[in-house]
């Protein structure tokens, strides 16, 4: 569904990604793991065209994203849940979800999709009139995921959904990711929480200082010496 080939990117003179290639197939949940500052967030920002790749090719279902402006990426079926959730704090939960359905093609499905989001996150229905800024961290993450689902995406990009959340809430967020992949969503998830994310993902890539160091199935990654030593402390 999504493929990156030889992508390099950065901010000004700082290069954050070097020759990154990866692939996400329809229906898969794929993890990109790695330490802080490895370029994981940059990778998702490149896919959403929030920053331009200096080199390399980006294909979504065979169509190049090269010349697509960032606000049209969503029309290709890509929805991005950004780092730190980035809800509109003064808008209600329902208005945040409404923003997720802004693209013309999504507006007609607003009613049915908001019901699906409320079914997935009953807490969001209870809080629908409440300003998003007053939600707890876990609720904000649910609202941010719900907002992304409102566009009816084929591919969901999740940037560190567990960051800054209490351990018990982290569990429930990964449970949500697991349920979404069971429902057939294609997910590309970026995480530092390696153990947890490799439980829900089928495959993964290890990103270090902007380069893909390892790739394989989740089981293979968990067994690799490099990950065991550097990340799992075994």
């Amino acid at each position, binding site marked *: 569904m999504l493929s990156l080939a030889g992508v390099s990117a950065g901010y000004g003179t700082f290069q954050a990604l070097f020759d990154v290639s990866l692939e996400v197939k329809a229906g898969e949940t794929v993890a990109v793991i790695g330490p802080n500052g490895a370029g994981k967030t940059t990778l998702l920002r490149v896919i*959403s*065209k*929030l920053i331009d790749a200096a080199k390399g090719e980006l294909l979504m279902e065979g169509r190049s994203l090269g010349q697509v*402006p*960032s*606000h*049209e*990426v*969503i*029309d290709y079926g890509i*929805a*991005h849940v*950004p780092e730190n959730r*980035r809800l*509109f*704090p*003064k*808008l209600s939960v329902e*208005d945040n979800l*409404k*923003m*997720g*359905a*802004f*693209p013309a093609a*999504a*507006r007609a499905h607003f009613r049915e999709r908001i019901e699906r989001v409320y079914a997935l996150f009953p807490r969001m229905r209870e809080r629908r009139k409440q300003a998003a800024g007053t939600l707890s961290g876990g609720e904000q993450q649910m609202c941010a995921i719900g*907002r992304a689902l409102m*566009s009816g995406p084929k591919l969901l990009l999740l940037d560190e959904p567990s960051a800054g959340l209490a351990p018990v809430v982290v569990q429930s967020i990964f449970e949500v990711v697991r349920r979404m992949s069971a429902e057939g969503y294609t997910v590309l998830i970026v995480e530092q929480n390696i153990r947890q994310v490799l439980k829900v993902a089928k495959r993964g890539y290890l990103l270090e200082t902007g380069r893909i160091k390892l790739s394989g199935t989740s089981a293979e990654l968990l067994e690799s010496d490099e990950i065991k030593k550097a990340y799992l402390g075994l």
Partner: protein
Amino acid sequence: MPIFDIFLLEAIINGLLLGGILALLALGLNLIFGVIDVVWICYAEMIMIGMYTVYYTHNVYGWPLWLAFIAAVALVAVMGVILHQFVIRPVLAAEPINQLLVTGGVLFFLQAAATLAFGVEFRNIGVQLPQLQLGEMYFSFSRLVAFLVALAGMIGVYLFLKKTFLGTAIRAISQDRAIMPLMGVNPNRIFLTTSALGGGLAGLAACLLVLQYDIHPAIGLSFGPITFMVCVLGGLGNMVGGFIAAFIFAQFISVGGFFLHSEWGYVLAFLFFIGVMFWRPQGILGGK
């Protein structure tokens, strides 16, 4: 009812009617500031252009009044778009003072251009609306019309902002502009839409003011400053605050003018404004 009470009631009701038009004036300016974070210093001069549009299309070219009104709203809306695209957009990332100066420059440009094009004579569209009698009180019908249209305009804007996808995006963009593309929103298009709406509101205000006031190139000076004060009093960018402040201000002018000389109404309103600024510099409903 004693005659004094009747006059007081008349003053209060007149204040209410004035409040409606002040609230409409403040709405466009607050909308622009709240969404784009730029003050249109030339706002009242855009209204002046709208008033001339009504005068020329109706009185010179003989268009029916309703068509002249539509032309004024449309023209000032387009001016709003042009102002944003060619004046505001290049300085969007600049210091606030530079943004004030460029729109201030547009103020002088519009004033000078109007003087050159239309001359300094006072013009009047010559539409005389009747006085309205209610018991022993008299009200200007044009003020009542202005009040009702202003109210309808504000309700329309409120519903647009609350109910539509575009309106929700307009409320969202000031909170996190960088993230808007992830929702499929082109931020510049939202800014242009907002500018058209702000200009359209200025055009609507022009249609209502032209019923009550003569038109001349410096007419902007007679309601520009008061519009800014209403906005600041309510909390710049806060549309609800501007609405409340407009009615408070109007009562000071109307009732204050009734107890003292009418010019004193303005003095009292400005003193009140200065007092509030000492107490709450951010305005009645302003944050931080």
